[in-house]
């Protein structure tokens, strides 16, 4: 298909263009990709060690690192699509550059960035002996993939809405912060009361985080997740996301 080949070329061109402004030529931005989750993990580790208050049944380093990795994945992928159109508006004078390509380039870039960061830090901590080797890597990859799919679908909803309305973009940032405690990054479902457990599983990111931890720590942790539910939610988000993106294509024209 010629159009698929063109689109791949365009997304590739945009990807390299985004790399330059995201990470710059001085590599500070690139380092920050690793520094941020690392500092977070070390910081929490420091505080909790100081107060001897590990309330989780898990090794703390692995728990913090994997939890924060899931946050970075959805927060960056969704958030960076909120401002994908405006700085690239001029590039749409070129016929083949479409709004969906702007979103795709940022989605691919952020998912790749979060993945590389997680893998590299995991390996570093493992080599240092601070994290035990994972129990089941396949489960971790599935969990990560499902969360990436969720993030991409959400990005295609938040991106167009934020382009249409600036207040929405601000609102989204606040919502993302408020959502943080509910996201499943910093609690395990098994730690909750039975009543809260069933509520928590309505949140798709919780299932992903649970499966990720099961892959990391093994089945003995009693993780709870529902992948079919996550898949249905992802699909249900992706369809309106694609429709909104098509709607945006028409409205961003004519400036």
């Amino acid at each position, binding site marked *: 298909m010629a159009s698929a080949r063109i689109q791949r070329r365009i997304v590739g061109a945009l990807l390299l263009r985004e790399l330059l*402004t995201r990470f710059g030529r001085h590599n500070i931005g690139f380092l920050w990709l690793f520094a941020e989750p690392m500092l977070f993990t070390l910081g929490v580790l420091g505080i909790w060690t100081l107060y001897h208050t590990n309330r989780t049944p898990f090794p703390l380093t692995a728990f913090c690192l994997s939890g924060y990795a899931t946050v970075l994945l959805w927060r960056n992928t969704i958030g960076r699509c909120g401002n994908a159109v405006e700085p690239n508006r*001029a590039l749409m*004078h070129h*016929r083949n550059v479409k709004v969906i390509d702007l979103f795709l380039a940022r989605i691919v870039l952020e998912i790749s960035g979060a993945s590389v960061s997680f893998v590299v830090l995991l390996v570093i901590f493992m080599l240092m002996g601070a994290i035990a080797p994972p129990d089941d890597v396949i489960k971790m990859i599935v969990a990560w993939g499902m969360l990436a799919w969720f993030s991409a679908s959400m990005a295609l909803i938040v991106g167009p809405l934020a382009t249409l309305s600036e207040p929405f973009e601000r609102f989204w940032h606040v919502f993302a912060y408020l959502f943080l405690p509910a996201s499943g990054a910093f609690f395990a479902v098994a730690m909750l009361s039975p009543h809260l457990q069933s509520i928590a599983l309505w949140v798709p990111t919780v299932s992903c985080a649970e499966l990720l931890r099961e892959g990391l720590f093994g089945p003995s942790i009693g993780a709870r997740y529902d992948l079919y539910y996550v898949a249905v939610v992802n699909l249900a988000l992706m369809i309106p996301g694609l429709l909104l993106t098509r709607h945006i294509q028409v409205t961003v024209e004519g400036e």
Partner: protein
Amino acid sequence: MISLRNVSKYYRVRGGTHAVFEDISLDIQRGEKVGILGRNGAGKSTLIRLISGSESPSRGSIERTMSVSWPLALTSAFQGSLTGVDNIHFIARVYGVDAGEIIPYVQSFSELGYYLDEPVKSYSSGMRARLAFALSMAVEFECFLIDEVISVGDARFHDRCAHELFERRGDRAMVIVSHEPHFIQKHCDRVCVLVDGRLVKFDNADLALAFYEESIRLARTDAA
């Protein structure tokens, strides 16, 4: 060939829709040079964007069987925080050409020197226009779209642009839109006038010109 069939374009405005133009049909043959005259706000740039394909028509269809440029000398087709060279790389990738091959040409033609390594947003409008023109000459197209008279840089650069476009690429199709008749009269085989949302076609450039000037005169008396 580029073929516009019953093309209309509407924009949403406060309290309804505004028709920029309605039911326009136009064929542009290979190698043909078509001029489109229109006053400010007549919808010339919108028409050029529709022909280039960066915008879609509200109604009607546009078919392209030759490669069409983006609007030439358009200084806003760049990403401002990237350098000139980064923008060259981007456009090379978008149009599937080898950046290594076109960079020397853009360098020598734009005469931007080391400014090519600076962000485009730091360029003056003249520098931007020079980069834009050089870049659109570096990628080969079968049809060039030219929005307004090329008023790039000084007289010498202007002459070099005209040479590149009308002599070295004299065999290509071109669509030139302008509010200024002389440039169009000099370079076009066929002239159309965009007035009141309609495209009026003429085989004879002098007739087109007379019609255009009459439409301006009428608009003035209306206003007075």
